[in-house]
Protein backbone atom coordinates (compact mmCIF):
# COMPACT_ATOMS: atom_id res chain seq x y z
CA UNK A 1 0.00 0.00 0.00
CA UNK A 2 1.29 3.45 -0.90
CA UNK A 3 -0.21 6.72 0.26
CA UNK A 4 -1.08 7.47 -3.34
CA UNK A 5 -3.55 4.58 -3.35
CA UNK A 6 -5.56 5.66 -0.34
CA UNK A 7 -5.15 9.36 0.13
CA UNK A 8 -8.05 11.71 -0.44
CA UNK A 9 -8.42 13.79 -3.56
CA UNK A 10 -8.51 17.60 -3.30
CA UNK A 11 -12.27 17.44 -3.75
CA UNK A 12 -12.57 14.98 -0.87
CA UNK A 13 -10.44 17.13 1.42
CA UNK A 14 -12.62 20.10 0.49
CA UNK A 15 -15.73 18.02 1.17
CA UNK A 16 -14.51 17.17 4.65
CA UNK A 17 -13.76 20.81 5.45
CA UNK A 18 -17.21 21.82 4.22
CA UNK A 19 -18.85 19.58 6.84
CA UNK A 20 -17.51 21.83 9.63
CA UNK A 21 -18.98 25.06 8.29
CA UNK A 22 -22.11 26.08 10.15
CA UNK A 23 -25.25 27.42 8.59
CA UNK A 24 -24.98 31.18 8.16
CA UNK A 25 -21.21 31.30 8.63
CA UNK A 26 -19.23 34.00 6.84
CA UNK A 27 -16.46 32.23 4.96
CA UNK A 28 -13.47 33.16 2.82
CA UNK A 29 -11.99 30.45 0.62
CA UNK A 30 -8.44 30.81 -0.61
CA UNK A 31 -7.61 30.87 -4.28
CA UNK A 32 -7.45 27.49 -6.02
CA UNK A 33 -8.23 24.20 -4.34
CA UNK A 34 -9.97 25.69 -1.25
CA UNK A 35 -12.56 27.27 -3.59
CA UNK A 36 -14.01 23.75 -4.00
CA UNK A 37 -15.31 23.85 -0.41
CA UNK A 38 -18.28 25.93 -1.57
CA UNK A 39 -19.58 23.04 -3.71
CA UNK A 40 -19.85 20.67 -0.76
CA UNK A 41 -22.02 22.54 1.71
CA UNK A 42 -24.25 20.02 3.49
CA UNK A 43 -27.94 20.08 2.63
CA UNK A 44 -29.82 22.68 4.65
CA UNK A 45 -26.81 24.76 5.51
CA UNK A 46 -25.89 27.90 3.66
CA UNK A 47 -22.69 29.79 4.27
CA UNK A 48 -22.12 33.31 3.00
CA UNK A 49 -18.95 33.63 0.97
CA UNK A 50 -16.70 36.66 1.04
CA UNK A 51 -14.15 37.51 -1.59
CA UNK A 52 -11.33 39.99 -0.96
CA UNK A 53 -12.12 42.07 -4.02
CA UNK A 54 -15.35 43.33 -2.54
CA UNK A 55 -18.26 40.91 -2.83
CA UNK A 56 -20.28 39.25 -0.11
CA UNK A 57 -22.71 36.41 -0.81
CA UNK A 58 -21.61 35.29 -4.22
CA UNK A 59 -22.69 32.03 -5.79
CA UNK A 60 -21.56 29.53 -8.38
CA UNK A 61 -19.62 30.24 -11.54
CA UNK A 62 -21.79 31.35 -14.46
CA UNK A 63 -22.17 29.12 -17.49
CA UNK A 64 -19.38 29.45 -20.05
CA UNK A 65 -20.05 32.44 -22.29
CA UNK A 66 -22.17 34.18 -19.65
CA UNK A 67 -19.31 35.63 -17.67
CA UNK A 68 -19.29 39.29 -16.75
CA UNK A 69 -15.63 40.02 -16.07
CA UNK A 70 -16.49 42.86 -13.73
CA UNK A 71 -17.99 40.22 -11.44
CA UNK A 72 -15.09 38.02 -10.35
CA UNK A 73 -13.63 36.54 -7.20
CA UNK A 74 -10.14 36.95 -5.76
CA UNK A 75 -8.95 34.16 -8.05
CA UNK A 76 -10.12 36.29 -11.01
CA UNK A 77 -12.76 33.66 -11.86
CA UNK A 78 -16.23 34.78 -12.92
CA UNK A 79 -18.91 34.41 -10.25
CA UNK A 80 -22.63 35.08 -9.83
CA UNK A 81 -24.54 36.73 -7.01
CA UNK A 82 -27.04 35.25 -4.58
CA UNK A 83 -29.99 37.34 -3.42
CA UNK A 84 -28.79 39.58 -0.60
CA UNK A 85 -25.31 40.25 -1.97
CA UNK A 86 -23.33 43.41 -1.38
CA UNK A 87 -20.44 45.21 -3.07
CA UNK A 88 -17.85 47.26 -1.16
CA UNK A 89 -14.37 48.64 -1.71
CA UNK A 90 -11.09 46.98 -0.85
CA UNK A 91 -10.49 48.79 2.45
CA UNK A 92 -13.95 47.81 3.70
CA UNK A 93 -13.35 44.28 2.45
CA UNK A 94 -10.20 43.93 4.51
CA UNK A 95 -11.87 45.63 7.48
CA UNK A 96 -14.13 42.57 7.39
CA UNK A 97 -11.07 40.31 7.26
CA UNK A 98 -8.74 42.01 9.71
CA UNK A 99 -11.56 43.08 12.04
CA UNK A 100 -12.44 39.48 12.84
CA UNK A 101 -15.81 39.46 11.13
CA UNK A 102 -15.26 36.27 9.13
CA UNK A 103 -16.13 33.05 10.89
CA UNK A 104 -13.83 30.85 8.83
CA UNK A 105 -10.96 31.29 6.41
CA UNK A 106 -9.79 28.20 4.54
CA UNK A 107 -6.40 28.34 2.89
CA UNK A 108 -3.90 26.14 1.12
CA UNK A 109 -0.48 25.47 2.61
CA UNK A 110 3.08 24.63 1.74
CA UNK A 111 3.85 23.90 5.40
CA UNK A 112 2.06 24.06 8.75
CA UNK A 113 3.87 23.97 12.08
CA UNK A 114 2.57 22.49 15.32
CA UNK A 115 2.62 26.05 16.69
CA UNK A 116 0.02 27.07 14.11
CA UNK A 117 2.55 28.87 11.93
CA UNK A 118 1.65 28.76 8.26
CA UNK A 119 3.83 28.99 5.15
CA UNK A 120 1.82 29.29 1.96
CA UNK A 121 3.03 32.27 -0.03
CA UNK A 122 6.63 31.73 -1.02
CA UNK A 123 8.72 28.72 -1.87
CA UNK A 124 11.73 30.84 -0.94
CA UNK A 125 13.32 29.99 -4.29
CA UNK A 126 13.44 33.37 -5.94
CA UNK A 127 11.25 34.04 -8.93
CA UNK A 128 8.53 36.63 -8.51
CA UNK A 129 7.16 36.82 -4.97
CA UNK A 130 3.39 37.31 -4.60
CA UNK A 131 1.39 37.39 -1.38
CA UNK A 132 -2.14 38.62 -2.14
CA UNK A 133 -4.50 38.54 0.81
CA UNK A 134 -3.14 35.47 2.59
CA UNK A 135 -1.26 37.36 5.30
CA UNK A 136 -4.39 39.36 6.11
CA UNK A 137 -6.71 36.36 6.09
CA UNK A 138 -4.68 34.39 8.61
CA UNK A 139 -5.14 37.19 11.16
CA UNK A 140 -8.73 37.89 10.38
CA UNK A 141 -11.08 34.97 10.67
CA UNK A 142 -12.25 33.56 13.98
CA UNK A 143 -11.13 30.14 12.70
CA UNK A 144 -8.30 29.62 10.21
CA UNK A 145 -8.21 26.18 8.63
CA UNK A 146 -5.83 24.72 6.11
CA UNK A 147 -6.46 22.23 3.28
CA UNK A 148 -3.44 20.34 2.06
CA UNK A 149 -2.00 17.08 0.92
CA UNK A 150 -0.42 15.43 3.92
CA UNK A 151 2.97 15.37 2.19
CA UNK A 152 4.63 17.06 -0.76
CA UNK A 153 4.70 15.30 -4.10
CA UNK A 154 8.15 14.03 -3.14
CA UNK A 155 6.71 12.56 0.05
CA UNK A 156 8.19 15.11 2.42
CA UNK A 157 6.03 16.01 5.41
CA UNK A 158 4.10 19.31 5.28
CA UNK A 159 3.10 19.15 8.95
CA UNK A 160 6.23 20.12 10.81
CA UNK A 161 7.66 21.17 14.16
CA UNK A 162 8.81 24.41 12.53
CA UNK A 163 8.20 25.78 9.06
CA UNK A 164 11.33 26.10 6.93
CA UNK A 165 9.69 28.22 4.21
CA UNK A 166 8.91 31.93 4.62
CA UNK A 167 5.96 32.37 6.97
CA UNK A 168 2.53 33.71 6.06
CA UNK A 169 1.54 34.07 9.70
CA UNK A 170 2.56 33.08 13.20
CA UNK A 171 0.36 30.87 15.38
CA UNK A 172 -2.71 31.36 13.23
CA UNK A 173 -3.91 27.94 12.05
CA UNK A 174 -6.26 25.97 14.29
CA UNK A 175 -7.23 23.00 12.10
CA UNK A 176 -5.62 21.17 9.20
CA UNK A 177 -7.56 19.00 6.77
CA UNK A 178 -5.10 16.78 4.94
CA UNK A 179 -5.35 13.98 2.43
CA UNK A 180 -4.89 11.53 5.32
CA UNK A 181 -6.20 13.13 8.49
CA UNK A 182 -7.89 15.94 10.37
CA UNK A 183 -5.51 17.55 12.83
CA UNK A 184 -6.18 20.34 15.33
CA UNK A 185 -3.52 22.66 16.66
CA UNK A 186 -3.84 23.18 20.40
CA UNK A 187 -1.30 24.47 22.85
CA UNK A 188 1.54 24.23 20.35
CA UNK A 189 0.89 20.59 19.46
CA UNK A 190 -0.78 18.65 16.67
CA UNK A 191 -3.84 16.84 18.04
CA UNK A 192 -5.07 14.05 15.77
CA UNK A 193 -8.88 14.03 15.45
CA UNK A 194 -9.53 11.81 12.45
CA UNK A 195 -7.47 9.57 10.19
CA UNK A 196 -8.16 7.35 7.22
CA UNK A 197 -9.19 3.97 8.62
CA UNK A 198 -6.76 2.17 6.30
CA UNK A 199 -3.85 3.90 7.97
CA UNK A 200 -2.32 3.04 11.33
CA UNK A 201 -1.29 5.80 13.69
CA UNK A 202 2.30 4.73 13.15
CA UNK A 203 1.92 4.97 9.36
CA UNK A 204 0.50 8.46 9.74
CA UNK A 205 3.19 9.52 12.19
CA UNK A 206 5.82 8.32 9.73
CA UNK A 207 4.73 10.90 7.16
CA UNK A 208 4.21 13.69 9.68
CA UNK A 209 7.09 15.98 10.66
CA UNK A 210 6.04 16.54 14.27
CA UNK A 211 4.43 14.48 16.99
CA UNK A 212 0.74 13.70 16.53
CA UNK A 213 -0.80 13.67 19.99
CA UNK A 214 -3.98 11.77 20.78
CA UNK A 215 -5.40 13.15 24.03
CA UNK A 216 -8.91 12.20 22.88
CA UNK A 217 -10.52 9.64 20.61
CA UNK A 218 -9.40 9.45 16.96
CA UNK A 219 -12.35 9.02 14.61
CA UNK A 220 -12.29 7.48 11.17
CA UNK A 221 -11.97 10.00 8.37
CA UNK A 222 -14.69 8.91 5.99
CA UNK A 223 -15.62 10.85 2.87
CA UNK A 224 -17.76 10.02 -0.15
CA UNK A 225 -16.36 9.17 -3.59
CA UNK A 226 -16.34 12.44 -5.52
Amino acid at each position, binding site marked *: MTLGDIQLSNAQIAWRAAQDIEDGAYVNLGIGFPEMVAKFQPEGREAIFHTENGV*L*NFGRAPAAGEEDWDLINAGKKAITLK*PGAAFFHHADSFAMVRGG*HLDVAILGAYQVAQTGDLANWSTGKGGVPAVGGAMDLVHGAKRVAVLTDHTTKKGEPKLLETCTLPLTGVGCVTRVYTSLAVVDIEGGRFVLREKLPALSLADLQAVTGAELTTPGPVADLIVPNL
Partner: protein
Amino acid sequence: MDKTIATPAEAVARIPDGATVMIGGFGGSGAPIELIHALIDHGARNLTVINNNAGNGHVGLAALIEQGQVAKLICSFPRSADPKVFTDLYLSGGIALELVPQGTLAERIRAGGAGIPAFYTPTSYGTDLAEGKPVAEFDGRMYVQERWLKADFALIKAEEADPLGNLTYRMAARNFNPVMAMAARVTIAQVSRIVAPGAIDPEVVVTPGIFVDGIVPVENPQQEEVLNRQEAVYP
Protein backbone atom coordinates in the same frame (compact mmCIF):
# COMPACT_ATOMS: atom_id res chain seq x y z
CA MET B 1 -30.70 33.18 7.13
CA ASP B 2 -33.02 35.59 8.89
CA LYS B 3 -31.63 38.04 11.44
CA THR B 4 -35.02 39.53 12.28
CA ILE B 5 -35.82 40.05 15.95
CA ALA B 6 -39.50 40.68 16.68
CA THR B 7 -39.29 43.55 19.16
CA PRO B 8 -36.84 46.11 20.57
CA ALA B 9 -37.38 44.53 24.00
CA GLU B 10 -36.20 41.15 22.73
CA ALA B 11 -33.28 42.77 20.91
CA VAL B 12 -31.78 44.39 24.02
CA ALA B 13 -32.71 41.65 26.51
CA ARG B 14 -29.19 40.20 26.60
CA ILE B 15 -27.36 43.46 27.34
CA PRO B 16 -25.89 42.93 30.80
CA ASP B 17 -25.00 45.40 33.52
CA GLY B 18 -21.57 46.88 32.88
CA ALA B 19 -21.71 46.46 29.11
CA THR B 20 -20.08 48.89 26.69
CA VAL B 21 -22.74 50.06 24.25
CA MET B 22 -22.27 52.14 21.13
CA ILE B 23 -25.39 54.12 20.25
CA GLY B 24 -25.67 55.60 16.77
CA GLY B 25 -26.85 59.07 15.89
CA PHE B 26 -25.66 62.65 15.73
CA GLY B 27 -27.95 64.90 17.66
CA GLY B 28 -31.40 63.52 16.94
CA SER B 29 -30.73 62.18 13.44
CA GLY B 30 -29.96 58.49 13.37
CA ALA B 31 -30.59 57.90 17.07
CA PRO B 32 -32.28 54.52 17.60
CA ILE B 33 -34.91 55.87 20.01
CA GLU B 34 -36.98 52.68 20.26
CA LEU B 35 -33.90 50.56 21.06
CA ILE B 36 -32.72 53.06 23.68
CA HIS B 37 -36.15 53.14 25.29
CA ALA B 38 -36.21 49.35 25.31
CA LEU B 39 -32.82 49.45 27.05
CA ILE B 40 -34.33 51.77 29.66
CA ASP B 41 -37.19 49.30 30.19
CA HIS B 42 -34.70 46.42 30.31
CA GLY B 43 -32.85 48.23 33.06
CA ALA B 44 -29.18 47.31 32.47
CA ARG B 45 -27.01 49.59 34.61
CA ASN B 46 -23.41 50.72 34.95
CA LEU B 47 -23.14 51.03 31.18
CA THR B 48 -20.34 52.67 29.25
CA VAL B 49 -22.00 54.46 26.35
CA ILE B 50 -20.27 55.67 23.19
CA ASN B 51 -22.16 58.33 21.25
CA ASN B 52 -21.22 61.66 19.69
CA ASN B 53 -23.38 63.58 22.17
CA ALA B 54 -24.88 63.30 25.63
CA GLY B 55 -28.53 63.40 24.71
CA ASN B 56 -31.03 66.19 24.61
CA GLY B 57 -34.18 66.76 26.66
CA HIS B 58 -35.69 63.73 28.41
CA VAL B 59 -35.88 61.06 25.73
CA GLY B 60 -33.40 58.67 24.11
CA LEU B 61 -29.85 58.85 25.46
CA ALA B 62 -30.74 61.71 27.82
CA ALA B 63 -33.44 59.52 29.36
CA LEU B 64 -31.04 56.58 29.67
CA ILE B 65 -28.65 58.86 31.53
CA GLU B 66 -31.49 60.30 33.61
CA GLN B 67 -32.40 56.80 34.75
CA GLY B 68 -28.90 56.45 36.18
CA GLN B 69 -28.00 53.58 33.86
CA VAL B 70 -24.85 55.16 32.38
CA ALA B 71 -21.64 55.11 34.42
CA LYS B 72 -19.41 56.54 31.73
CA LEU B 73 -19.91 58.41 28.49
CA ILE B 74 -17.39 58.56 25.63
CA CYS B 75 -18.35 61.41 23.32
CA SER B 76 -17.18 64.53 21.49
CA PHE B 77 -19.86 67.09 22.26
CA PRO B 78 -21.95 66.74 25.44
CA ARG B 79 -23.79 70.01 24.74
CA SER B 80 -27.16 70.44 23.10
CA ALA B 81 -30.21 72.67 23.17
CA ASP B 82 -31.18 71.03 26.47
CA PRO B 83 -28.30 69.06 27.98
CA LYS B 84 -29.58 69.53 31.54
CA VAL B 85 -29.77 65.82 32.39
CA PHE B 86 -26.13 65.16 31.54
CA THR B 87 -24.85 68.50 32.83
CA ASP B 88 -26.41 68.08 36.28
CA LEU B 89 -25.16 64.52 36.65
CA TYR B 90 -21.67 65.35 35.39
CA LEU B 91 -21.24 68.39 37.63
CA SER B 92 -22.37 66.36 40.65
CA GLY B 93 -19.83 63.65 39.82
CA GLY B 94 -22.50 61.11 38.93
CA ILE B 95 -21.12 60.20 35.51
CA ALA B 96 -17.64 59.86 34.02
CA LEU B 97 -16.81 61.57 30.74
CA GLU B 98 -14.12 60.72 28.18
CA LEU B 99 -14.02 63.61 25.72
CA VAL B 100 -12.75 62.66 22.23
CA PRO B 101 -12.46 64.90 19.17
CA GLN B 102 -15.24 63.97 16.76
CA GLY B 103 -13.05 62.74 13.90
CA THR B 104 -10.86 60.80 16.29
CA LEU B 105 -13.98 59.24 17.80
CA ALA B 106 -15.20 58.13 14.38
CA GLU B 107 -11.77 56.83 13.39
CA ARG B 108 -11.24 54.97 16.70
CA ILE B 109 -14.56 53.21 16.16
CA ARG B 110 -13.71 52.41 12.53
CA ALA B 111 -10.32 51.10 13.72
CA GLY B 112 -12.10 48.84 16.22
CA GLY B 113 -14.17 47.44 13.39
CA ALA B 114 -11.23 47.12 11.01
CA GLY B 115 -8.77 45.34 13.32
CA ILE B 116 -6.43 48.33 13.65
CA PRO B 117 -5.43 48.53 17.34
CA ALA B 118 -3.84 51.98 17.06
CA PHE B 119 -3.23 54.76 14.56
CA TYR B 120 -1.70 58.20 14.42
CA THR B 121 -3.61 61.42 13.85
CA PRO B 122 -2.61 65.09 13.82
CA THR B 123 -5.82 65.84 15.71
CA SER B 124 -5.35 67.08 19.30
CA TYR B 125 -1.55 67.26 19.07
CA GLY B 126 -0.32 69.85 21.54
CA THR B 127 -3.68 70.07 23.32
CA ASP B 128 -5.00 68.91 26.68
CA LEU B 129 -6.85 66.06 24.97
CA ALA B 130 -3.54 64.50 23.92
CA GLU B 131 -2.23 64.37 27.48
CA GLY B 132 -0.70 61.03 28.36
CA LYS B 133 -0.92 59.72 24.80
CA PRO B 134 2.17 58.63 22.84
CA VAL B 135 3.26 61.03 20.13
CA ALA B 136 5.48 60.41 17.11
CA GLU B 137 6.93 62.35 14.21
CA PHE B 138 6.29 61.32 10.62
CA ASP B 139 7.70 63.31 7.69
CA GLY B 140 8.49 66.22 9.98
CA ARG B 141 5.06 66.59 11.53
CA MET B 142 3.88 65.52 14.99
CA TYR B 143 1.04 63.07 15.54
CA VAL B 144 -0.84 61.54 18.46
CA GLN B 145 -1.34 57.80 18.81
CA GLU B 146 -4.97 56.83 19.34
CA ARG B 147 -6.36 53.39 20.24
CA TRP B 148 -9.29 51.53 18.74
CA LEU B 149 -12.73 51.57 20.37
CA LYS B 150 -14.84 48.44 20.50
CA ALA B 151 -18.12 47.66 22.19
CA ASP B 152 -20.09 44.69 23.43
CA PHE B 153 -23.22 45.97 21.70
CA ALA B 154 -24.03 48.55 19.06
CA LEU B 155 -27.57 49.91 18.86
CA ILE B 156 -28.04 51.59 15.52
CA LYS B 157 -30.79 53.01 13.32
CA ALA B 158 -31.06 52.21 9.62
CA GLU B 159 -33.73 52.67 6.97
CA GLU B 160 -34.05 49.47 4.99
CA ALA B 161 -32.78 45.97 5.75
CA ASP B 162 -32.98 42.56 4.19
CA PRO B 163 -33.08 39.43 6.37
CA LEU B 164 -29.30 39.00 5.93
CA GLY B 165 -28.77 42.34 7.66
CA ASN B 166 -27.72 44.41 4.65
CA LEU B 167 -28.59 48.02 5.51
CA THR B 168 -29.28 51.39 3.95
CA TYR B 169 -29.69 54.66 5.84
CA ARG B 170 -31.71 57.86 5.51
CA MET B 171 -29.85 61.09 4.66
CA ALA B 172 -27.69 62.49 7.47
CA ALA B 173 -29.06 59.85 9.84
CA ARG B 174 -26.25 57.67 8.48
CA ASN B 175 -23.51 59.42 10.53
CA PHE B 176 -21.90 57.08 13.13
CA ASN B 177 -24.22 54.14 12.49
CA PRO B 178 -22.16 52.29 9.81
CA VAL B 179 -18.88 52.46 11.73
CA MET B 180 -20.50 51.43 15.00
CA ALA B 181 -22.03 48.45 13.20
CA MET B 182 -18.47 47.31 12.48
CA ALA B 183 -17.05 47.75 15.96
CA ALA B 184 -19.36 45.83 18.30
CA ARG B 185 -19.46 42.17 19.19
CA VAL B 186 -23.25 42.28 18.72
CA THR B 187 -24.82 44.87 16.42
CA ILE B 188 -28.57 45.43 16.53
CA ALA B 189 -30.22 47.70 13.99
CA GLN B 190 -33.72 49.08 14.20
CA VAL B 191 -35.00 49.55 10.67
CA SER B 192 -38.04 51.18 9.12
CA ARG B 193 -38.55 48.37 6.62
CA ILE B 194 -37.46 44.78 6.08
CA VAL B 195 -37.46 43.76 2.43
CA ALA B 196 -36.79 40.42 0.71
CA PRO B 197 -33.21 39.25 0.03
CA GLY B 198 -32.22 40.77 -3.29
CA ALA B 199 -34.61 43.73 -2.97
CA ILE B 200 -31.70 45.97 -1.97
CA ASP B 201 -29.41 46.55 -4.97
CA PRO B 202 -25.96 45.17 -3.97
CA GLU B 203 -24.50 48.46 -5.28
CA VAL B 204 -26.34 50.59 -2.69
CA VAL B 205 -25.86 48.50 0.44
CA VAL B 206 -24.07 50.76 2.93
CA THR B 207 -23.59 48.25 5.74
CA PRO B 208 -23.11 44.67 4.50
CA GLY B 209 -24.87 42.08 6.62
CA ILE B 210 -21.62 40.62 7.95
CA PHE B 211 -21.53 43.53 10.41
CA VAL B 212 -25.10 43.05 11.64
CA ASP B 213 -26.40 40.48 14.11
CA GLY B 214 -30.02 41.47 14.56
CA ILE B 215 -32.56 43.65 12.78
CA VAL B 216 -35.70 44.90 14.52
CA PRO B 217 -38.57 46.33 12.51
CA VAL B 218 -39.73 49.73 13.82
CA GLU B 219 -42.05 50.97 11.16
CA ASN B 220 -42.49 54.63 12.02
CA PRO B 221 -39.48 55.39 14.19
CA GLN B 222 -39.57 58.34 16.57
CA GLN B 223 -37.15 61.18 15.90
CA GLU B 224 -35.38 62.69 18.90
CA GLU B 225 -35.57 66.26 17.63
CA VAL B 226 -39.29 65.94 17.00
CA LEU B 227 -39.87 64.39 20.43
CA ASN B 228 -37.95 67.18 22.11
CA ARG B 229 -39.94 69.86 20.30
CA GLN B 230 -43.00 68.13 21.77
CA GLU B 231 -41.25 68.18 25.19
CA ALA B 232 -41.65 64.42 25.42
CA VAL B 233 -40.38 62.54 28.48
CA TYR B 234 -39.47 58.85 28.73
CA PRO B 235 -40.53 56.68 30.41
